[in-house]
């Protein structure tokens, strides 16, 4: 087992444990903290794949900005401990089915694959800052601009909703 493979499994385990803990935790803040762990573990995985820029942005945007907002809102609303109700039967049966189906699909894919999985550090052209900006601003410039338009609409909508109570 190479060092990078060991790091991969450590990070993957961290991400999975964080994700499970996110659901199991009773307090919203603990759930948010678990989500931060997942984000950082994912950033580590990106770093392992040689996507330095994506890894850093993952931490800055998701770990730093979005999760701070989550924590901020949870603190502001002073959300208490959640009550765990028993799982509804409607959601339980199809959910279980879906879990089994997904696990089977993943297992089948892994079993069928013959190539070894790339987990090593590889400074790819695509993953570099230059590569990413070329893709965003040349190849996919219209989808990118459309996305920013969508976000702008959402921002304006939020502002309108926040302003309504004042007038």
């Amino acid at each position: 087992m190479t060092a990078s493979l060991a790091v991969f499994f450590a990070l993957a385990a961290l991400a999975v444990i964080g994700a499970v803990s996110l659901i199991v935790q009773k307090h919203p803040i603990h759930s948010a903290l678990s989500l931060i762990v997942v984000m950082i573990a994912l950033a580590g995985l990106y770093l392992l794949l040689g996507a330095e820029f994506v890894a850093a942005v993952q931490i800055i945007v998701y770990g730093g900005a979005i999760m701070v907002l989550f924590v901020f809102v949870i603190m502001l609303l002073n959300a208490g401990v959640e009550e765990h109700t028993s799982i509804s039967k409607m959601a339980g049966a199809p959910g279980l089915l879906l879990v089994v189906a997904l696990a089977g699909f993943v297992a089948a894919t892994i079993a069928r694959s013959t190539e070894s999985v790339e987990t090593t550090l590889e400074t790819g052209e695509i993953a570099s800052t230059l590569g990413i900006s070329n893709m965003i601003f040349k190849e996919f410039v219209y989808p990118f601009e459309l996305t920013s338009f969508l976000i702008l609409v959402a921002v304006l909508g939020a502002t309108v909703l926040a302003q309504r109570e004042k007038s």
Partner: protein
Amino acid sequence: MNSFLKANAELVITLVKIVLLLFIVLTANAYLTWFERKVVAHMQSRWGPHRVGPHGLLQPLADGVKFLFKEDPTPAGVDKLVYYLAPLLALALALTSIALIPFGPEPVRLFGQDIYLGIAPPDLNIGILALFAVTALGVYGVALAGWASNSKYPLLGGLRSSAQMISYELTLTMSVVGVLLMAGSFNLKKIIEAQAHHLQWGILGWNVWPQILGFFCFFIAAVAETNRVPFDLPEAESELVAGFHTEYSSFKFAMFFIAEYTSMITVSCLCSILFFGGWLSPFPASWLFTHYLPSAILISFGLWVIWDGIRYETIFGRIILPGLGAAITALGVVFVLLPKVNEFIQGPFWLLSKILVFLFVYVWMRGTLPRFRYDQLMAFGWKLLLPLSIVNVIVTSFVILAKMQWWGAK
């Protein structure tokens, strides 16, 4: 043992560097508190600490001992895990951020290894992004401490802190984009090298001139990010007792304290590197005599300390201060006598001087400015700083584009 050292040279060197930097940073932190108290005191016509040791120089030591030996109660009703995690997180992230700073241009050749000053590899491609990633997480220390204490004032402090961080993080990032555009890289070393294109101009070649707007936004946002006066609303003692760390005592409080001072040092490093040429000398490269400036400063300062120490009122001071002065003078003399060493210390010397200047500015602001009101803070961040930094990005990119189009620069 020897073969083990050879095989894992990189690992061993990094570990030694980590221990050394940790020692230096913690000592610097301790003396930064002394420096701050002394400077603010003199600004307010007081003496500041002067009882413990000559000129109060042993005050940080006394404070440290006090931090260690105070009772360390855990208030009832706190969220145990998060309560203990918060100061740890704050300290760990602050110390990680300073590990990403390069402190000198040239490696030292020791034991057949090139040893760079600074822990992170000098060719770290995402240098500044990694730094921002670490500092962006730093808010959790404060916010979670406020929440986990299960008490009113800390919660308000934590809330203020996260709101402030979200608001000023944007400006902080946007204001650096201009510098990044000019350097064409995220690498801190390359950013400094980009300012060295006009070595004959000295101080005029630095980023601060074309990026004066960016520097203005960056420095203010960075001060806000470190929760220092005039942006210290999360711990506003006149409103919130002590803000987010009200329920923390003893060494847990000290961890927040050290984290805050370490981030001050990191921000000072970043300001020097991004806008003030990092380790570049402010004088034109042809002025070779300026290479003796470090020695001149050290020798004159050392002699002053000796002179001051001889007539100091306590016996202890009369022994310690001249000794200290003699050591400083000797260091200056060594630099004169060994030209190779003198060449090597030029970079680190200038970087350290710039860091010291910024730390002084930090203290100066604390001694001068009153605290912002909360709505002023928000209006200032969103309505003035953020638009300014965006304008800076747009203007810089247009100028660079124009240069490429019409003057055929690279």
